């Protein structure tokens, strides 16, 4: 077995040092009745690298990869260009095969990256601080709701109708067991989000208002207005960003008054990966830092006076505080944070702005083409690189038929909101700098075909 260095001679010499007759003696504490005598029946035996690669390539070959066809899916996961250097650098063994930096003297590489990452994320989100990452956007959202409950000592969270339904479901799962009350609603098919209806739901018992920006239909809520009302009631505004590239163009939520900003960082450097691993972004006001979940990296000095970095404020965390911790999170998304950080370093603020402007332009061109399709209407008055169109028919069926014709044309609202009949004709369409004019024309033609 190519991954196991011990030879039979090594094993027998080592058993001699231990004073055991056989390796089975080392498993003497496993009750004999439960001990397996041989390899588990029904499972194959070991295989060569060639054989495994062949098997996995065959599975991969049964899928239609996004880059191989005209592609317009978004809804919380976005396909943007990832420079080749990003994936090369994250495969440096010193990054790829390191552990959580518990021994800072020999982990300054990871720690400095995390410090740079925290700074990049805080500036992107417009918050004073950011942590070293969470599992993904949806779990970061759940943690933010729990954090708001700790800060306000209230248990009623108001969720906007524009919050991604998987995020809503994730928060509802958490609440079912913590006892928080979740006030959620479906999105309305209007040109702009109904901020006033959301504001009307805020009361003196509200711990937080959770608002996606841009929202799941690609519309842009008025965060400043919502923040003012929420804060007047003693509630926190949690802004959720599922498409961070949009922040290259529109104002950062923290600058508009959000107290906590969480996000999905996948769009920058991480890739689609069929849904994971992704990258939870988490920023907030400085005064809330001791209520934050997750790891934090901080600057300090070593015994010789040199600048260095360590994991810090770990008295919030489970390995110190156990049942009194702010969260049970242990592992974060270190390697995805590295990928995000490298791409942000390559882009800089200027490059992210350019990426957002081109993505927006491609989305505009896509919307203009789709508006020419008979019976199709663009819903949004404003959007960055994702918008909703209304079809004259069920969008799920249209998406399936376009896929059969080799066009991945968007995400139907029926897939996201099964059972919500009012929404079933809605189709979410996203574009990016990867979208070509030929792709846009192919989508237009495909949609004309399935609606004909």
């Amino acid at each position, binding site marked *: 077995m190519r991954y196991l*260095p011990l030879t039979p001679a090594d094993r027998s010499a080592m058993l001699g040092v231990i004073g055991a007759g056989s390796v089975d003696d080392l498993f003497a504490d496993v009750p004999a009745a439960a001990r*397996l005598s041989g390899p588990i029946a029904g499972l194959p035996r070991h295989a060569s690298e060639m054989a495994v690669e062949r098997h996995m390539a065959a599975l991969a070959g049964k899928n239609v990869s996004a880059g191989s066809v005209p592609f317009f899916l978004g809804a919380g996961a976005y396909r943007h260009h990832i420079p080749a250097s990003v994936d090369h650098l994250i495969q440096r063994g010193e990054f790829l095969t390191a552990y959580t930096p518990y021994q800072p003297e020999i982990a300054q590489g990871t720690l400095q990256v995390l410090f740079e990452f925290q700074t990049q994320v805080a500036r992107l989100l417009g918050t004073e601080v950011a942590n070293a990452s969470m599992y993904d956007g949806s779990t970061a959202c759940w943690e933010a709701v729990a954090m708001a409950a700790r800060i306000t000592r209230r248990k009623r969270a108001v969720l906007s109708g524009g919050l991604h339904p998987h995020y809503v479901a*994730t928060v509802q799962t958490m609440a079912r067991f913590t006892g928080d009350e979740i006030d959620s609603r479906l999105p309305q098919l209007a040109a702009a989000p109904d901020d006033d209806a959301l504001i009307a739901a805020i009361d003196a018992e509200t711990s937080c208002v959770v608002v996606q920006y841009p929202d799941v239909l690609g519309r842009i809520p008025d965060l400043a207005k919502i923040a003012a009302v929420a804060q007047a009631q003693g509630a926190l505004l949690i802004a959720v960003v599922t498409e961070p590239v949009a922040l290259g163009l529109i104002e950062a939520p923290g600058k508009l008054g959000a107290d906590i900003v969480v996000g999905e960082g996948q769009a920058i450097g991480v890739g689609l990966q069929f849904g994971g691993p992704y990258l939870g972004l988490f920023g907030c006001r400085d005064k809330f830092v001791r209520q934050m979940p997750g790891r934090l*990296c901080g600057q300090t000095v070593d015994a010789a006076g040199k600048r260095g970095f360590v994991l810090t404020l770990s008295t919030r965390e489970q390995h110190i505080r156990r049942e009194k911790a702010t969260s049970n999170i242990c592992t974060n998304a270190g390697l995805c944070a590295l990928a995000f950080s490298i791409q942000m370093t390559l882009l800089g603020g200027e490059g992210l702005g*350019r990426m957002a402007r081109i993505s927006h332009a491609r989305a505009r061109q896509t919307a203009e083409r789709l508006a020419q399709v008979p019976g199709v209407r663009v819903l949004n008055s404003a959007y960055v690189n994702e918008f909703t169109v209304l079809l004259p028919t069920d969008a799920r069926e249209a998406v399936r038929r376009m896929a059969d014709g080799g066009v991945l044309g968007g995400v139907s609202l029926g897939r996201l909101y099964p059972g919500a009949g009012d929404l079933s004709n809605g189709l979410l369409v996203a574009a990016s700098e990867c979208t070509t004019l030929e792709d846009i024309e192919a989508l237009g033609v495909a949609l004309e075909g399935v609606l004909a």
Partner: protein
Amino acid sequence: MNAVNQAGWRPEMGQANAATRATSSGDRALMLEEALIFELGQPGTCGVDFGETDLPPLDSLAPFLRRDPLDLPGLSEPEAVRHYTRLSRQNYAIDLGPFPLGSCTMKHNPRLNEKVARMAGFADLHPLQPVSTVQGALGAINQLAHWLIELTGMHGVAMSPKAGAHGELCGLLCIKAALEARGEARTTILVPESAHGTNPATAAFAGFAVESIPATCEGRVDLAALTAKLGPHVAGVMITNPNTCGLFERDMKAISDAVHAAGGYVYCDGANFNAVVGKVRPGDLGIDAMHINLHKTFSTPHGGGGPGSGPVVLSAALSPFGPLPFTVREADGSVRLVEEEQAAHEHPQGFGRMAAFHGQMGMFTRALAYILSHGADGLQQVAEDAVLNANYVLCSLDDVLDAPFGASGPCMHEALFSDTGLAEGFSTLDIAKGLIDEGFHPMTVYFPLVVHGAMLVEPTETESKAGLDRFIASLRSLAERARAGDEALKSAPHFAPRRRLDETMAARKPVLVWQG
């Protein structure tokens, strides 16, 4: 056995402090310092070429546009590659040498798995593509699920949890949902005092009270004490097996039977499953739920702190309550995804969704490649070699380091030592920092909490005997120095990129973002 290798070759580094003269750059040959990107980069620089667009933003977007450009510096590609390559060299990694962190399982990461995960047919798939376009991906998830069920002897598996602690939460939510279905509101989870910190944190987050179970003098759960605490208020127990002292819980089946008889459920923390994979199936020990850290047992890379992946295998009693989504293989070989739409009639008792989308696909493909490479026979060998290596470390050092449970039987995958016998004023931390100077990553220190100054050494199966002998020789010399009171050890490390860092200062006045 102290030979560094069969030829007896040992590196000669010369006088340790011969090169103390300052250089004008601050660097020293291959020891390179690196500034922060904020000190290197300039606003306006961009290392990625895009086309430009003449199309202005929509007029309706005007009220939402940024007032100021995003204030982040950029680097050109050569500068960026150099920045991260220089930083990488300040990290220790399993690719450089043993990384014997007990309970963390740092084993070799096969590169085939990296190659497979990057195949466009896996890496470049959107999670919401029509299922007809992702049959291979759903098939891979389903195949991994099948292996996890077979290897554990359980009934079902929840694939979506994102890491071990997230898996713990999944298991406890299943237990809570099962109790709700029975109409019972049990309030308490029992947790051994040697448990990982995530266990009590998870139980508290899920709304349970946590009660601690003591250990016996031999380092195992005290069955009598546990049984005495059982009652109608106990929802379940969380047991780590093999436990954090590196010992197999001999009484596991009796514990499960007692908990079940009292109406509770048994959660097993599977962080240490790598010690017994292919040797014993948790399902045969009465376990109701157990998370499997794919980044431990099945060697997906740790990446400097994640991403992990924590699928949870479930008993027949808990499977109906597991989260969405999951896959079902049909008779014709096609694979379906059961999401919210199908849940109402196919999975009505499920507790809901733990996260967006379908789980850590990039970890699933790596773990599947690892499992297929090893096969049922290779996985069994993995457990045997991991346990053999740990016992070899234990028996090679128990004359110079105190092994508090050395008389409790063979250890499993990790060897536990205490600080008993070190000279006055010398601590486990000094030995750990001394190992850094010796060119090794230290073991887990001060955990488990039940042992004073714990040193938990997990060599894993991917260390050679020669490599272990080098490590053992170094740890032996450090133990001897700490017993003899060698003052130089107290200021170790001397040769790392940094000396000991001031963690108190970092916590007292936190600087979490660049202040320049």
